[in-house]
């Protein structure tokens, strides 16, 4: 069950050839020799990291006199993690959920098990939360989670089996139902079942759902990450959509880590670690806020308080005991999500 070498053997061979030559070229990273980093990330961070990479490169060159080029790779979080497991030479990964990063340890021992404790705030330098997007004027009067399970309300959310982002949506709904007055595992499950009865389409990814909601006109409410909701309301569909912030939601923590095996092999550890540290700096936090992620820094967050309304947030550790447990109970085959659709699934 180690790296997946057999399947794309042909590709793997040629990749191995490439990576060898590229690591030779950039091996010693001291002095003024140029250095490149590869940041393997998930889809919606494209614009954030485009800005951040430029800012970091400038700062690093000013401080160390070394030119650093950061290459970006974006895709679905799970797919990106599998690419790294299968040998993509990522120096750092910045993914949507800790479960995908955990797998870099479990499947390929690329990072230590305690990776998430190495940086502040669970290694998540910026956060987000799950909110609702409704059509202008909120014709269905959506205010909170409870409104999503009403009859005649159509809800758009991607398939949590294929989309890492969608798993946060699902867990936010579950946490709401569990923590409300009189909530229990059973009521939470009933709530989730009712919610998904109102979902007509399960797109494979978050951007797919956004398209379904915004372009196809399907659904009364879109469950989305706050940063995606801002993008939709402020930049794509001005005056067509509104954000509704529920009373309770989940603290979405997209984590970052250095990929130890790769940076040690390529000799890029120092710069890779500095790169991630810089996400916590004032400039990094400002850029996160600019791209609608909630900054961790109190000072920066205070400056943008008007943008991010106060929500009662719970974490995945609080309610689910971490990602691995949540994944196994809810999203693996035969889990709660499957049982919504296949009543007697094993």
């Amino acid at each position, binding site marked *: 069950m180690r790296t997946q070498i057999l399947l794309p053997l042909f590709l793997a061979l040629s990749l191995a050839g490439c990576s060898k030559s590229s690591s030779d070229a950039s091996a010693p990273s001291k002095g003024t020799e140029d250095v490149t980093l590869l940041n393997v990330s998930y889809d919606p961070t494209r614009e954030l990291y485009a800005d951040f990479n430029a800012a970091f490169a400038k700062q690093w060159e000013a401080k160390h006199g070394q030119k650093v080029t950061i290459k970006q790779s974006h895709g679905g979080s799970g797919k990106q993690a*599998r690419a790294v497991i299968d040998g993509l030479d990522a120096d750092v990964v910045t993914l949507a959920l800790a479960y995908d990063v955990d797998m870099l340890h479990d499947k390929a021992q690329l990072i230590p098990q305690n990776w998430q404790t190495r940086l502040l705030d669970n290694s998540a330098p910026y956060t987000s939360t799950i909110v609702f997007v409704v059509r202008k004027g909120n014709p269905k009067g959506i205010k909170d989670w409870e409104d999503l399970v009403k009859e005649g309300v159509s809800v758009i959310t991607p398939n949590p089996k294929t989309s890492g982002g969608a798993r946060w949506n699902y867990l936010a709904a579950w946490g709401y139902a569990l923590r409300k007055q009189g909530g229990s595992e059973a009521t939470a499950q009933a709530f989730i079942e009712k919610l998904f009865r109102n979902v007509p389409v*399960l797109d494979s990814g978050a951007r797919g759902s956004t398209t379904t909601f915004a372009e196809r*006109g399907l659904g009364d409410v879109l469950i989305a990450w706050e940063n995606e909701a801002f993008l939709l309301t402020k930049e794509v569909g001005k005056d067509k959509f509104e954000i509704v912030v529920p009373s309770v939601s989940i603290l979405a923590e997209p984590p970052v880590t250095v990929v130890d095996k790769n940076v040690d092999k390529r000799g890029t550890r120092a710069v890779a670690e500095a790169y991630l540290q810089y996400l916590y700096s004032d400039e990094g936090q400002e850029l996160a806020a600019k791209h609608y992620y909630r900054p961790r820094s109190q000072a920066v967050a205070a400056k943008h308080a008007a943008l991010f309304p106060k929500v009662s947030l719970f974490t995945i550790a609080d309610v689910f005991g971490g990602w691995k447990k949540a994944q196994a109970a809810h999203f693996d085959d035969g889990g709660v999500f499957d049982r919504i659709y296949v009543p007697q699934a094993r």
Partner: protein
Amino acid sequence: MAVSSRRRVLPGFRLSLGFSWFYLGLLVLLPLSGLFLRTFTLTWAQFWETVTSARALAAYQLTFGASLAAALANVVFGLLVAWVLVRYRFPGRDLVEALVDLPFALPTAVAGLTLTTLFSANGWYGRHLEALGLKVAYTSLGVAVALTFIGLPFVVRTVQPVLEDIDVDVEEAAATLGATPWQTFARVLFPGILPALLSGFTLAFARALGEYGSVVFISGNMPLRTEIVPLLIITKLEQYDYAGATAIAVVMLTASFLLLLAVNLLHRWSHRRLEARSGH
């Protein structure tokens, strides 16, 4: 088509055969055997449970059913398009020629998005179809539509050269011998193009079985209803369940292989029948 084995163009039968085996082995057999090996990490019971779960069964049904429907639709309409392109000269013919190839070139995700836009409730087609009570986007019908779209060029491009080879004289001769237009088609033209039509069908069908990119947009991915097999494989991979994903893939592969083999045998049979007839 049938190059006699006595008149060889390539040097050295053994060398070229050896190379063919090596090439196929490296590109097809080796990766595929890796696929089979991966499933051996499962016990037989686990394998069986994975590949016969309710969702998997529903997905096989949809994938094979929609692929078959799409390939058959393409056989009929692809033949028509090929016929028009070969037999008629009309303004804009070059444009149509180029259009036929478009589904080849278009990234499948773009095709999926475009089709979904057209067929969704507020789209150009969907608006009218929905008024008639016909839902296409996010149903299995939508899956078939996407698969028809991507399969069209295969039938047109395999039938076209064969049609070009059939002289109009043949049709005229049949007519002078008293054949009705239908008889001319059914007994003179059709047997000639049947092998090519079968090839086109096979290609379109095989392409449809593996299609992912365009379908996931229009299908809606509802468990038990509009989940295609490739999506099921992706959901397994999202759980890092490589063995489960390959188990489904192996079933898919075996079924596809058997089907393609059957079509190829049919192909050979119809070809032989054709040669026997033209031998008279």
